[in-house]
C-alpha cells in the first residue's frame, strides 16, 4: 500500500472501534477491549510503517507526503482537506502511537479486567471492591472490575482517533476538528466517574476553560482563511511570500501585523489546551479521571496537541523574525507566558500531596518549558522536549496509577479508610512494588533531567542552552524551574517509595499485574533512549559520536534557518542544568527523608503562610470564582434574563398590552356605554315610554276612535286652512 493512502487510514481503526463498542459490544468487556486495543495496534503499526518509510527519505521536509479531497464547496472552488506527513508529523506520530498503545494495554489491568463484579458498584462511581471467599472459607475484599469497562474503551478509542486525526491533518480546520473532539473526550473521561460531585465539576471546568482558548482560535482560523484563502499548511507555512505579506500587513488591532494577531489568536488556543497560565486551572482538576486518562490527556495527546499546534505554526509565529533580532510579538508572548508558567506551576507542585496532582503541575510546568523554548526560537529543542516529555510523563502517570492501585490493594486488605493517592500515606513502597519503583524512578529522573542517561536531560539541556544565548531572564527562570522540578520529583520519590510505610495500607501494598507493569517498562525504555537520538554536536565527549539525528531530521523543517544556532559549546547552561538537576534531587531527598507523620508535610511548618499559598495554588481558583464566574452568572441570570428580558422587553410588551386594554376600557366606559349604548337605550326607552302613554288612547272602543278621527280631521282641516291663508 502506498504510504500516502496508509496515512489517511491511521485514525480510522479507533473511530470504528468507538462506534462498534458504543453500538454493539458495550455489554462485552473482553470483546470491547479487544476491539479497542486491536484498533490502536493497527494504527500503531501503520505509524511505525510511516516512520520507517520516512527514515528512508532524504527531503521529506521539502516534499512532504499527502493527499487531498474536496470537502466544502465554496463558491466556484472547494475547501480541501487532506493528510500531510513531514518530519514533524513523523516524530509526533512516533510518540503518539507508542504512548497510546501502552496506555490502552495498561488500562486493561487498571480497570481490573478479570476481577469479579462488586456488589456495591454502580455506574458512574469507581469500583468499590468485591467480597470473595477463598478455598479455606476466608472472606477477602479484592478489587472489582470497572462497571463501565466497555464504555471506557469506547471513549479512549475516540480520543485516540482525534489525536491521530489532528496529527495527520494537512490543514488547520481538520486539526481543529481533532482538537475539539479531544476536548469532548476529555470532558467525558474526566467526568468518567460522573456520579462524583468533584468529577462532574472538573469535567465542566476542563471543557469550558479550554473553550475560552478555542473561541479565540476559531477567530484565528477565520482571519487566516480570509487573508490567505486557505488553511493548508503548505499553502501558508511553506510559502515565504504569504508569510511575508502576513508579516507586513497591519491588522486593525493596535497596528500589529496580521501574522502577529493570528499568531496570538492561535496561541490563545494553545494556552487553553496546553494549560498555560492563566488557563491552567482545569488540568490539575482533570485528575478526577481514571489514571490512564490522565496519561492520555497529559502526555500522549491533548496537552501535546496544543504545543504541536505552536510548533506546526512556528513559521507563522516567527514570520519576519531573524535569529538574533528582537522576537516577534507572538514569540515574546510565548517566551513570557511559557517561562512564567514553567516556574509558577513548579512552585505549586512543591506543596501538593496528591501523587497525581504533583504530576499534573509538573506537566503544566514542562509544557511551559516547551512554549518558552519555542518563544525564543529554539524550534528543535522544543520539539525534542515535547517528545521526551510525552514518554516520561506517560510513564510517570501510569506508574503513579500502579502505585494507587497497589495502595488500594492495601486499603482493601486492611479495611482502613484513607486516601490512596495521598503521598503522606505511602512510604517504603519500593519493597512492595519493585517494578513500579524502578519505572517511576526512571521517569522521575528523566523529568528531573538527571545527566547523560535520561532523555529529559538532553532535551532540557538544549532548551537551557538556547535560552542562555537569547534571553537571560528566560534562562534564569527556566533554570530555577529546573531546580524546583528536580526537588519536587525527588520529594515524590522519597515520600512514595523510600523510608518506611506511614500507613498499614502502604505496608500491605501489592505490585500490579504484568499487564500494567509491561507498558511501564516499554515507556521506561523510551524515557531513557529517546534522548540519545538528539545529542548535540557540540556536547563535550559525546557530541559527534552519536549522530544528532533528531536535530537534523526535525531541523530540516525550517530549511537552512533551522540549523542549530548554538553550534559552539558554552559551559554555563550545562553546568546550570547539571547542578539544578543533581542539587534539586539531593535536596528533595534530604528534606523528605525525615518525613514520618501522615498529617503534615515537613516543610509546612517552616514555610508557614508561603506553604499554604502554594498548597492552595495561589488562590487562583478562588479569584476566578469571584471575579469571573460569579459576575458571569449574574450577567446571565439577573441582567440578561430578569432585567432585560423580563422587566424591560416583556415589561414594555405588557405595558402595551395594558395600554390596549385601558384604551378599550376607556372606549367602553366613555363612548360605548354612555353615548352609543345610552343613545340606543334612550331611543328604546323613549319609544316605550311614548307607547305606554299613548296606550291610553287605544282602549279598543270604536266610539273613541271615531271621536279621535273627527278631532284629527278638524285639526287637519284647520291646518290646511291656515296654510292656505299663508
Amino acid at each position: 500500500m502506498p504510504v500516502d493512502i496508509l496515512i489517511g487510514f491511521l485514525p480510522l481503526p479507533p473511530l470504528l472501534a468507538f462506534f462498534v463498542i458504543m453500538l454493539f459490544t458495550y455489554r462485552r468487556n473482553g470483546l470491547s477491549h479487544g476491539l479497542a486495543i486491536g484498533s490502536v495496534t493497527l494504527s500503531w503499526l501503520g505509524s511505525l510503517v510511516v516512520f520507517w518509510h520516512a527514515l528512508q527519505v532524504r527531503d521529506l521536509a521539502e516534499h512532504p507526503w499527502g493527499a487531498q479531497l474536496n470537502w466544502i464547496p465554496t463558491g466556484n472552488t472547494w475547501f480541501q482537506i487532506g493528510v500531510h506527513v513531514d518530519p514533524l508529523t513523523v516524530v509526533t506520530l512516533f510518540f503518539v502511537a507508542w504512548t497510546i498503545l501502552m496506555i490502552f494495554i495498561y488500562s486493561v489491568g487498571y480497570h481490573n479486567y478479570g476481577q469479579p463484579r462488586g456488589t456495591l458498584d454502580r455506574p458512574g462511581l469507581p469500583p468499590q471492591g468485591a467480597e470473595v471467599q477463598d478455598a479455606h472459607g476466608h472472606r477477602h475484599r479484592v478489587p472489582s472490575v470497572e462497571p463501565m469497562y466497555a464504555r471506557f474503551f469506547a471513549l479512549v478509542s475516540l480520543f485516540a482517533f482525534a489525536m491521530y486525526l489532528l496529527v495527520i491533518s494537512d490543514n488547520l480546520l481538520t486539526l481543529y476538528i481533532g482538537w475539539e473532539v479531544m476536548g469532548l473526550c476529555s470532558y467525558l473521561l474526566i467526568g468518567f466517574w460522573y456520579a462524583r460531585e468533584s468529577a462532574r465539576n472538573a469535567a465542566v471546568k476542563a471543557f469550558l476553560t479550554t473553550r475560552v482558548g478555542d473561541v479565540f482560535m476559531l477567530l484565528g482560523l477565520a482571519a487566516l482563511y480570509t487573508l490567505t484563502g486557505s488553511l493548508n499548511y503548505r499553502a501558508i507555512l511553506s510559502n515565504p511570500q504569504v508569510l511575508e505579506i502576513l508579516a507586513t500587513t497591519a491588522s486593525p488591532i493596535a497596528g500589529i501585523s496580521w501574522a502577529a494577531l493570528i499568531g496570538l489568536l492561535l496561541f490563545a488556543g494553545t494556552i487553553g489546551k496546553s494549560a498555560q497560565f492563566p488557563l491552567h486551572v482545569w488540568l490539575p482538576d482533570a485528575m478526577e479521571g481514571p489514571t490512564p486518562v490522565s496519561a492520555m490527556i497529559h502526555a500522549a495527546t491533548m496537552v501535546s496537541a496544543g504545543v504541536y499546534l505552536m510548533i506546526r505554526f512556528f513559521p507563522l509565529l516567527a514570520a519576519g523574525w531573524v535569529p538574533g533580532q528582537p522576537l516577534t510579538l507572538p514569540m515574546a508572548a510565548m517566551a513570557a507566558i511559557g517561562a512564567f508558567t514553567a516556574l509558577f506551576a513548579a512552585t505549586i507542585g512543591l506543596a501538593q500531596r496528591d501523587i497525581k496532582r504533583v504530576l499534573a503541575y509538573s506537566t503544566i510546568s514542562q509544557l511551559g518549558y516547551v512554549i518558552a523554548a519555542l518563544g525564543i526560537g529554539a524550534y528543535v529543542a522544543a520539539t525534542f522536549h515535547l517528545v521526551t516529555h510525552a514518554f516520561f510523563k506517560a510513564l510517570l502517570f501510569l506508574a503513579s496509577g500502579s502505585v494507587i492501585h497497589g495502595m488500594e490493594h492495601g486499603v482493601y486488605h486492611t479495611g482502613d479508610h484513607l486516601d490512596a493517592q495521598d503521598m503522606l500515606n505511602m512510604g517504603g513502597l519500593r519493597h512492595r512494588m519493585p517494578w513500579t519503583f524502578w519505572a517511576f524512578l526512571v521517569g522521575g529522573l528523566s523529568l528531573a533531567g538527571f545527566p547523560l542517561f535520561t532523555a529529559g536531560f538532553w532535551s532540557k539541556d538544549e532548551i537551557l542552552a538556547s535560552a542562555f544565548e537569547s534571553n537571560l531572564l528566560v534562562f534564569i527562570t527556566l533554570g530555577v524551574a529546573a531546580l524546583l522540578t528536580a526537588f519536587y520529583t525527588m520529594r515524590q520519590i522519597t515520600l512514595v517509595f523510600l523510608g518506611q510505610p506511614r500507613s498499614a495500607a502502604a505496608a500491605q501494598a501489592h505490585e500490579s499485574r504484568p499487564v500494567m507493569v509491561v507498558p511501564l517498562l516499554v515507556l521506561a525504555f523510551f524515557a531513557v533512549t529517546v534522548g540519545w537520538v538528539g545529542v548535540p554536536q557540540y556536547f563535550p565527549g559525546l557530541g559527534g559520536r552519536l549522530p544528532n539525528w533528531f536535530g537534523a531530521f526535525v531541523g530540516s523543517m525550517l530549511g537552512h534557518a533551522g540549523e542549530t544556532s548554538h553550534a559552539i559549546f558554552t559551559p554555563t547552561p550545562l553546568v546550570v542544568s547539571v547542578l539544578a538537576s543533581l542539587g534539586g534531587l539531593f535536596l528533595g531527598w534530604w528534606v523528605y527523608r525525615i518525613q514520618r507523620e501522615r498529617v503534615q508535610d515537613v516543610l509546612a511548618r517552616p514555610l508557614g503562610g508561603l506553604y499554604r499559598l502554594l498548597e492552595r495554588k495561589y488562590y487562583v481558583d478562588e479569584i476566578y470564582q469571584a471575579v469571573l464566574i460569579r459576575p458571569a452568572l449574574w450577567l446571565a441570570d439577573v441582567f440578561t434574563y430578569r432585567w432585560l428580558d423580563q422587566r424591560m422587553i416583556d415589561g414594555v410588551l405588557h405595558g402595551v398590552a395594558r395600554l390596549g386594554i385601558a384604551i378599550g376600557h376607556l372606549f367602553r366606559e366613555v363612548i360605548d356605554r354612555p353615548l352609543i349604548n345610552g343613545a340606543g337605550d334612550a331611543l328604546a326607552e323613549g319609544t316605550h315610554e311614548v307607547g305606554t302613554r299613548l296606550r291610553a288612547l287605544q282602549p279598543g272602543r270604536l266610539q273613541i276612535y271615531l271621536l279621535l278621527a273627527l278631532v284629527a280631521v278638524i285639526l287637519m282641516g284647520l291646518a290646511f286652512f291656515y296654510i292656505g291663508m299663508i
Partner: protein
Amino acid sequence: MTWLESHWLTLILFAPTAGALILLILPVRNEKGIRVLALGFSLISLVLTLLLWARFESVPVTGGFRFVERAEWFSAIHAFYHLGIDGLSFPLVLLTTLLTPLALLASESIKTNLKAYMVLFLLLETGMLGVFLALDLLLFFVFWEVGLVPMYFLISQWGGANRHYAALKFILYTMGGSLGLLLAIQVIGLSGGTFDLVELFQRWPALTYLNLPLGLSIETIRAIAFWAFVIAFAIKVPVWPFHTWLPDAHTEAPTAGSMILAGVLLKLGGYGFIRLILPLFPNEAQRFAPALAVLAVAAIILGALGALAQQDFKRLVAYSSINHMGFVVLGVAAAALAWRAADPRAQLDANLALNGAVLQMFNHGLSAAGMFFLVGVIYDRAHTRDLRDFGGLYALLPVYGTILIFTAMASLGLPGLGGFVSEFLVVRGAWPQLTLATALSMIGLFFTGAYLLKALRSVLHGPLNPRWQGVLKDMSGLELIVILPLIGLSLLTGLWPAWLLGMINQAVVTLF
C-alpha cells in the same frame, strides 16, 4: 416534463392537507387509525421530497428554480399560484417533511382531541411548506399566515400550564409583524405590477418611480418596506429584541409543537431574509447590514446568557434557539454587505456567509428538534423539567444519556457534527466585513458551551437523586426512531457537508 414532474411541488405541498381533510371525516374514537393516517400522509410528502431530490439535477431550471408550477390565481391583481424550488429552499423543505412525521411520532402522549391535533398538525405542515415553495408574494403571505393559526391552537389546547398566555403572545407578536409585511407586500405588488417573485426580483429593485399618492420618495418607501419585512422576519427568527415570545411559546407548546416551532417555524424568518430581503432590497440591506449585525450579535450573546440563567430544561433549550439563529442573521448581514460586490474576495465572503446561514438553519432544525424531543422524553417520565430536580440520571438511563450528550454536542457546534461547519462558514464569511461583530459573537459561542454543559451536568451527572431510582425507564424503540434520523443527519453533515452544501452553494452562486 411529465405531469408528475410538473405538479410535484403541489403534491408535496397538499398531501398533508389531503390527509387533514380525510381525517376530518374519520370517527374520533379510532385513535390508532388517526395516528397511522396522519403519519402516512406526512410520509407521502417526505418520500416525494426524497424522490425530488434524486432527480433534482435532471430537471431543467426556469428562472433559477426547478419543478416550477405557474397558474393564474387572482388575475386582476397579477397574483399567481407560482411554486418552485432551489438549493435555498430544498434544505428547508426536506427539514419540514422530515420533522413533521418525527413530530407526529413524538406525539404519543397526546390523548385528548387527538383528531383535531392531527388535523392541525397536517395543516401546519402545508402552511410551512407553502412559505418555502411559494414564488409569489401574495401566496407567500397567505401560507405565512396559514401556518400561524394551527400553531396557536396547538399551544393553547395541548400546551403546558401557562399555555393561554404563551399562545396569545405568540400569535399577537407574529401578527404584529405581519401587518407591516402585508402593507409592504401590497406596495411592492402594486408598484411592481405583479406579485410574481421571479419578475419582481428584476423589476422592484430597478424601479425609479413610484405611482403612489403619498408624496414620498421611492427611497423612503423602499426603506419603510424594507424595515417592514425585516421586522416581520426578525420576530419570527427571532432577532433580539423581538424574541421574548419564543421562550414562552416553546416552553408551553407540547413536545411535538416545540420540535416544529424550533425546527421549522423559526426558519420561516431566516428564509424570508434570504429569499425576499436580499434580492428585493439589496441596497437597503447593504446600508442597514451593520444594524442587523448588531442585533444578530445581541441575539447570539444575550440568547446564550438567557439560556444560562434558566432552571427549566425546556426554557433553556428554547433560549438556545435565539443564540443559534443569531448566526443565521449574522450570515445574512455579512452577505448583504458584500452583495454583488465587484471584488471576487468580497463575493467569496458573501458566498460563504450565506452558505453557512442556510446550512445553519438546517443544522439548527435538527439539533433543536432533537433537544426539544429529548426534553419531552424526560418530562414524560419525570413530570418535571426543573434542572434542580434531576441529577445522576446517566446511571439509570445510559441510552438516553448518550443520545442527550450527542444532541447537546450537535447543538454546541462540536466539530465533526453539522453545526460546526455552518457556524464556521458564517464566522469566516462575516469576519472580513463585520470583524468586531464576529469577534463579539465568540462570547456567545463560549456561553453556548456553558449552558449546554450546565444542562448535561444537572440532568445526567452528579449523585443520583434517589427519587428517580426505579422510576425512570430508558428510551423506547419508538423514541429511538424519532431521534436517530436527527443524530444521523447531524453526523453526516459534520463529516461530509457537501451532500447538502453542494446544492446550497449552487443556489447561492446563482443568487449573486
